[in-house]
C-alpha cells in the first residue's frame, strides 16, 4: 500500500482507516475472489448483505472469505422500512458482525433509490443504540442534515442508481454535501470507472464504495487494484490542492490589457 499519506487517516467509529476505498461482496462469480480483491485494492472496509449470509450453512459461507483484518460493514439490503432495517441491524449484531451498519432502505425496485425518510428514522434508532451508522441516501442536503442530527457516523450519497455504472451523475449535489456536511461523505453506487472514483476523491469525498464495477469487471482483482490506485491518486490530489487554473493564456488579457501601459 502507498504509505505517502499514511498519517491521512479516515476515522469512522473510532477506527482510523488508511484506505479510502470500501468494497462489496455482491455480484461476484465466486466468493473465493474476495480475498484477492481486498488484497490488491488495499480496501479495509467491506460491506456484506446480511440477507446473503447463511449462518447455519454447513458448507461454504461468504463470511469465510472475508479476512479478519478488514472492518465488516453489514448492510440492510432488502429492508423496505426503518423497522426492517433496524431488525436486520440487530440480527447482524447478534450474529457477531460487530456494530457497524450500512443502512439501505429501498422501497422502489425499479430504480433502487433509497428512501430518505425511512433511512433517517432507522439511523436515529440505531445510532441511539450505539451502532456506527453509515446511511445510503440520495445526494440530498436536507436528508444529510437530518442524518447529522440523528447521529450518523458518515453519509453515503449515491453517484448514480445502484448497479448503473453511470458515474458521478450527482456531482454537483455531492459537492454541496462535501461543503456543508461535517461528516465524512462516502460516495456509494454508480461509480463505474476508476477515473470516476478519482474525480470524487479529488472533489473532497472522504471515501468511495465500489462494488458492481469491480465484481462485474473482466478480471475483478485487476480492476480492484486500479480502483485502489485511483482512490489514492484522487485523495493525494485533493490534499495537494489544485494549482490555480485560468481560462486564458497568461500573455493575453483582452479585457484588462489596456491597464498595462499606454494609457496615461
Amino acid at each position, binding site marked *: 500500500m502507498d504509505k505517502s499519506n499514511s498519517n491521512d487517516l479516515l476515522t469512522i467509529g473510532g477506527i482510523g482507516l488508511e484506505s479510502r476505498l470500501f468494497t462489496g461482496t455482491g*455480484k461476484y462469480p465466486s466468493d473465493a475472489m474476495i480475498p484477492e480483491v481486498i488484497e490488491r485494492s488495499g480496501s479495509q472496509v467491506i460491506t456484506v448483505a446480511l440477507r446473503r449470509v*447463511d449462518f447455519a450453512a454447513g458448507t461454504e459461507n461468504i463470511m469465510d472469505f472475508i479476512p479478519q483484518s478488514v472492518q465488516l460493514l453489514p448492510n440492510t439490503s432488502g429492508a423496505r422500512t426503518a423497522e*426492517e432495517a433496524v431488525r436486520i441491524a440487530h440480527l447482524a449484531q*447478534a450474529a457477531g458482525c460487530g456494530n457497524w451498519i450500512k443502512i439501505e432502505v429501498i422501497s422502489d*425496485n425499479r430504480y433502487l433509490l433509497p428512501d430518505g425518510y425511512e433511512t433517517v428514522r432507522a439511523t436515529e434508532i440505531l445510532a441511539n443504540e450505539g451502532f456506527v451508522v453509515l446511511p445510503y441516501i440520495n445526494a440530498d442536503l436536507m436528508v444529510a442534515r437530518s442524518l447529522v442530527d440523528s447521529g450518523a457516523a458518515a453519509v453515503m450519497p449515491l453517484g448514480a442508481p445502484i448497479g448503473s*455504472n453511470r458515474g458521478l451523475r450527482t456531482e454537483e449535489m455531492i459537492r454541496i454535501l462535501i461543503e456543508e456536511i461535517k461528516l465524512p461523505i462516502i460516495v456509494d453506487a454508480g461509480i463505474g470507472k476508476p477515473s470516476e472514483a478519482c474525480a470524487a476523491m479529488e472533489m473532497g469525498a472522504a471515501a468511495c464504495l465500489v462494488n*458492481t464495477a469491480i465484481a462485474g469487471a473482466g478480471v475483478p482483482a485487476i480492476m480492484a487494484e486500479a480502483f485502489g490506485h485511483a482512490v489514492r491518486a484522487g485523495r493525494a490530489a485533493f490534499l495537494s490542492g489544485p494549482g490555480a487554473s485560468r481560462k486564458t493564456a497568461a500573455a493575453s488579457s483582452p479585457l484588462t490589457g489596456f491597464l498595462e501601459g499606454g494609457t496615461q
Partner: protein
Amino acid sequence: MTDFYEYYKTWRDFSFVEYFRSVSESRVAAILQKERLSEIDFLALLSPAAEGLLEDMAQRSRDLTIRNFGRSVLLFTPMYLSNYCTNRCVYCGFNVDNSIMRHHLSFPEVEREAEEIAKSGLKHILLLTGEDKRRASIEYLCHCVRIVEKYFTAIGIEIYPLETEGYRTLVENGVDSLTLFQETYNETLYKKLHPGGPKRNYRYRLAAPERGCAAGMRAVNVGGLLGLDDWRRESFFTGLHADWLQSRWPEVTVGFSLPRMRPHAGTFQPDFPISDRHLVQVMTALRLFMPRAGITISTREGAQFRDNILPLGVTTMSAGASTAVGGHSREEADSTSQFDISDERNVQEMAEALKGFGYQPVYKDWHPIGGILS
C-alpha cells in the same frame, strides 16, 4: 383504473398482426439504443423483425443482467404438497378428469420431505398444491410453512388464487413470495382451456398477483404457459402485467417465469409450440423491458438449453426438482408427476455447472427478518 384487467382491456383488441408487419429491423435497432423501453418498444422486440437482431438483444440482455444481478443465479426447488385438484385444465396432468395416483402429504411427511430437500443445501423452497381448498386449506398451508421454515429461509407458494386476506395470513405465517401463472392472457381461449372448476374465473385469477402485492408479498412472479397461444402476444401481456404491478407496488420484487409446455399424462399437446430461438427472444425482450425483474427458468427445460441461456438474462433456476408429491422422500410410487422434468441434475451438479460457467450458485438470498437466528 382499479385493476390490471381494466388496463389489459386497453390493449386486448390491439391489432398485433398489423403492428408486427409495420416493424422494421432498423426500428428494432433504434430501440436497442434506448435506455428505457416503452410498451410499444417492448412489443417491437417481440416482432418477427427483431429476430434478425437476436444476438444484439442477447448481448444487451446479458450486460444488463450482470450489472443488476452479477454473475450469480439463485437456486430453489419446488415441493409438491398435494396433487388433488378440482379443476379441469385441459393441459395439466393433475386435472380432476385424469385418473392418476393422488396424494396429500401429512405433516410428518412434509417434515420428512423438507428434511430430505434441505440436505442439498437449498434455502429457498416453493410450495405447490393443486386446487382443493378442503385438503390444501390455508390452515393446512400455514402449518406446512411452520414446518418447512425450520429448514428453509425463504418460502414461496404456487397455489390456487386467494383473497387478499388469505395471502396476508400466509405472509404473516412466513411466506414471502407468490408465483401465479395466468396460463393464457387470451380470455376466450382461457375459458376453453378451463372448462370446469373454480379456475374458470379468468378475472379472479388475473387479479390474484395484485392481491398478493397488497397483502405484503415480498416478491411476485407472473407468467403465461408458453405454447397455449401465440407466444408473441402472451409474452407481451406477461411483460405488461409485470410492469403494471411494479408501477403500483414499487416495493415488491416483480419477476417472470417462462414455463414452456412439456409432455404430460393427458392427451393435450400445445397448439403453439415455441422454439428455443423464440424463447430466447422472449427472455431477452423481457429483460430489456424490465432490467431489474427476476427471470426464472425451471427444470422443464433441458440441461443443455439451460446452460446455453444462463447468461442471457436468467436470475433464478430450480434444481434437483421433482414434480411428484413427496417426490424426494416417499418411496411408494403412488403419485404422478405434474409434468416431466427435463433437466435432471441434482443441486450439487447444478451448482458445479454454474461454477463452471463462471456463475455463483446462490442458496440464500433472503431470510425472515424476525427469525434468522432464532
